[in-house]
């Protein structure tokens, strides 16, 4: 997995934890909140990475590419939601198949345009600094800081903004939200576009520390789902805990064992995590969401 791209040092524990959280945050919106088993999440990350690559090629400006990446990924996400997925919210199996198909299409289009050959994106901030005897690349510090900033922004946005309030209401009980005057279709579209844009940003941020090929997004898909599920679907706080635990453990394990073995252990931890998760109390938020309220849609006549 992405381990191969990262050197092993203690700061790497923090970086990998941040990467796990960064790639999973977009999925929090599309899967955690909207309940779409979003297999196209990895390809939205891919779009972000290749947008950055293309802008670097044509203008030489990597940062401009990173600014455009979330925009393009957000627009593609919006188009997919309006064009296909909005008809499938009540049909989870169909939406899973649809996102699988969309992912295939995007991957093939990227391969057609950019070739299957590995390519690299230049880091916008080169060089490194010394910390505790380790050489830490500046860009990795930026990834950690951007992830932290993104989390604070997302949490505040959902908590304080009018859209955030409408989104939380729509997710909790779409029928009641609609009859209270919330355009639930528009809110869902907005959430999907936002999740897609964040996935695009993740792709752009990670492109300089990776080697790009059309399979790039797949690397993050499984780990994103692990983080969102273990954190308790719909809980950002849980997502952060799960991201830090899984990413941090994965990085730490590399000190003592091979990459492949470490990944196997992480999957084992994830399976155990899913089993005992309710005991940890991180999912209180998510669990309460599913208790009494959804009843409006299923009430007696």
């Amino acid at each position, binding site marked *: 997995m992405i381990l191969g791209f990262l050197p092993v040092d203690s700061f790497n524990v923090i970086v990998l934890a941040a990467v796990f959280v960064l790639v999973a945050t977009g999925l929090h919106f599309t899967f955690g909140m909207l309940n779409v088993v979003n297999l196209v999440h990895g390809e939205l990350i891919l779009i972000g990475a290749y947008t950055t690559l293309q802008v670097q090629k044509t203008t030489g400006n990597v940062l401009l590419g990173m600014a455009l990446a979330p925009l393009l990924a957000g627009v593609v996400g919006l188009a997919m939601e309006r064009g296909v997925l909005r008809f499938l919210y009540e049909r989870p199996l169909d939406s899973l198949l649809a996102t699988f198909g969309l992912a295939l299409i995007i991957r093939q289009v990227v391969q057609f345009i950019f070739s299957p050959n590995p390519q690299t994106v230049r880091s916008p901030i080169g060089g490194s600094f010394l910390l505790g005897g380790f050489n830490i690349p500046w860009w990795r510090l930026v990834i950690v800081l951007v992830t932290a900033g993104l989390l604070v922004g997302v949490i505040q946005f959902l908590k304080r903004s009018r859209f955030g*309030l409408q989104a939380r*209401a729509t997710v*909790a009980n779409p029928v009641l939200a609609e*009859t209270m*005057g919330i355009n639930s279709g528009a809110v869902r579209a907005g959430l999907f576009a936002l999740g897609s844009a964040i996935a695009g940003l993740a792709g752009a941020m990670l492109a300089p520390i990776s080697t790009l090929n059309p399979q790039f997004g797949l690397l993050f898909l499984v780990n994103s789902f692990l983080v969102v599920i273990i954190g308790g679907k719909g809980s950002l706080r849980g997502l952060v805990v799960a991201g830090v635990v899984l990413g941090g453990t994965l990085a730490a394990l590399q000190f003592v064992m091979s990459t492949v073995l470490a990944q196997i252990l992480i999957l084992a931890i994830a399976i155990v995590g899913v089993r005992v998760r309710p005991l940890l109390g991180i999912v209180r938020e998510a669990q*309460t969401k599913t208790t009494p309220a959804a009843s409006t849609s299923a009430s007696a006549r």
Partner: protein
Amino acid sequence: MLEVEDLSAGYGQTTVLRGISFTVAPGEVACVMGRNGAGKTTLLRALMGVLPKTGVVRLSGTDISQRPGHRINAAGMVWVPQEASVFPGLTVRDHLVIALQRRREEEDGIAEAGELFPALGERLGQEAQTLSGGERKMLALAQALIVKPKVVLMDEPTEGVAPVVVEQLIPAIGAAATESAVVLVEQNIDTALALGGNAYILEQGSIVVSGTVRDLYDRGILEQRLAL
């Protein structure tokens, strides 16, 4: 003025309501009564756009029958569902803010909810999920009434509520009925009598008897038709 003409609705292939027609003017209460399964709740859900329907629903002369729920709400029709559902994680204040939807000054609306039901005013910062059943009914009613709607659809607002709370709810419903048209689903004859207005008795999805609540009661028809 709410005008309903030849409304039919159901769930999937099953038709529950057939050929329902009635009108309610502002300041009037229309009591929809009937036994369990007669289609009372289905009628409110169909009017609110939750269920697909045929027929015509006009609000102040505008046909709103094919609008989605949020646009029916925007046209001035609000719904107090039977379960008094709340959004988990959202406070009482959040619920009122959502209901107001910028239609009037937020703080005015929230203050009015507090005057209507002081118990709510004291709990604005509390998560609505932690309210008691009676307080949830108050919240659902407050959400509906503070927006000054043209039509309020109420589904058994006093059902399962302690008598002391019912004493607070009925005047609030009565006050709403001075400005709005109220469609009230009610099984409790005493509540229907307290609010007056016209009664429409549903049986198997059709209106079988209509008249004023008082007249139907005096003639023994209410008891006869609603007896379990």
